[in-house]
């Protein structure tokens, strides 16, 4: 399934609103684009990105293509295994 950006942004906006952070649709869109494009750029520089409570991403540059890896944190796997049982 391809994540629908507008639906995803709507959910995030509503959840942020519930936490007292009220930002416009365009701001959420900009945050989404900026986050993903900066993550891509940082990985391309060979750095590791650690997303709190989710996992780590890093990219290994090889020829002819680069491969991006992801290592989930243990708690994420535990949550997934618990919810899927």
């Amino acid at each position: 399934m391809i994540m629908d950006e507008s639906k995803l942004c709507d959910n995030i906006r509503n959840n942020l609103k519930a936490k007292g952070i009220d930002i416009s649709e365009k701001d959420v869109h900009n945050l989404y684009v900026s986050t993903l494009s900066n993550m891509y750029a940082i990985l391309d520089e060979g750095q590791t990105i650690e997303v709190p409570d989710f996992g780590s991403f890093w990219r290994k540059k090889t020829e002819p293509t680069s491969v991006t890896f992801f290592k989930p944190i243990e708690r994420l796997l535990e949550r997934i295994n618990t919810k899927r049982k």
Partner: protein
Amino acid sequence: MNKQTDQLELNRIIAQQTLLDESVVEAFISQLFIEIEKSIIVDSHIKVDGLGIFRIIKSGDSHRILYLGSNTPIDNSIDLSHISREAENRYSDTRGTDTELEPTSSLEENIMTEEKEVESKVSIPQDPQDEADAIVIRNFLDSERNTNRNRVVTPTNHRKSNLVKTCIITLIILAVLGIGYIILSGSSIKPKEKVMNNITFKEMDNTDTINYSRIIIPESDVSLQYIARTYYGNDIYWPYIFEANKNIVNNQFIIQAGSITKIPKIAVDLVDLHNGNEASTVQALGDEIYKSIR
């Protein structure tokens, strides 16, 4: 080991680009990954543009995440026009209060005249806040003016536009012909399997029996499909071999002779190949890997 990115540094860069507070950026990133986690749990297989594909697979008694990173950045741009407009509106409101008694006929004035008027007013700011607004408004007006200038239709522009249209149409026709050729010639986007007979594998000591069922060394070059067929009974499982051996698989999906190859433990009954939907999901995963490598 690679340099670790400081989370605050990432927040700072995004905050600068989006002109939002760093605390908002931090909350957004946290919420984004919460939403991704929710989707993985519900759908088992999701694709996030610019990030990649996450898929949950059953491995033994538990589930694991199979991740295939995106090789292309997100195809979208940041739009800050609403922020410029907000600043402009704020300035206009202030101006409106100051000049309540001015005649409404000013609305009908020429846009250029109005722009000049605004510019002349913003050029003499009274305090730092006004100065910041003035800079934003001036930049906005400049960009609007440049856009309008670019929109002016001249014969040269018209010819260029026609040339671009012709090029696009030609490319579309070529693409359609290419797709037609592929369909007619019976090709599919599936890695071609090198014809191989009687390939033997040397088995090594398996030091990680939790994750791998075997560690082998092929004695000649071998395709992922051949290994999948040998060890799982069906070549459709080749993406699992790929995932465990990304570093030694070449872009022809071949593992070279002498490479230490890991055979991951998977529940081969995970996918009911007689069920069309499940088989096509595995097939789709393979196709995604194939497209990302090619």
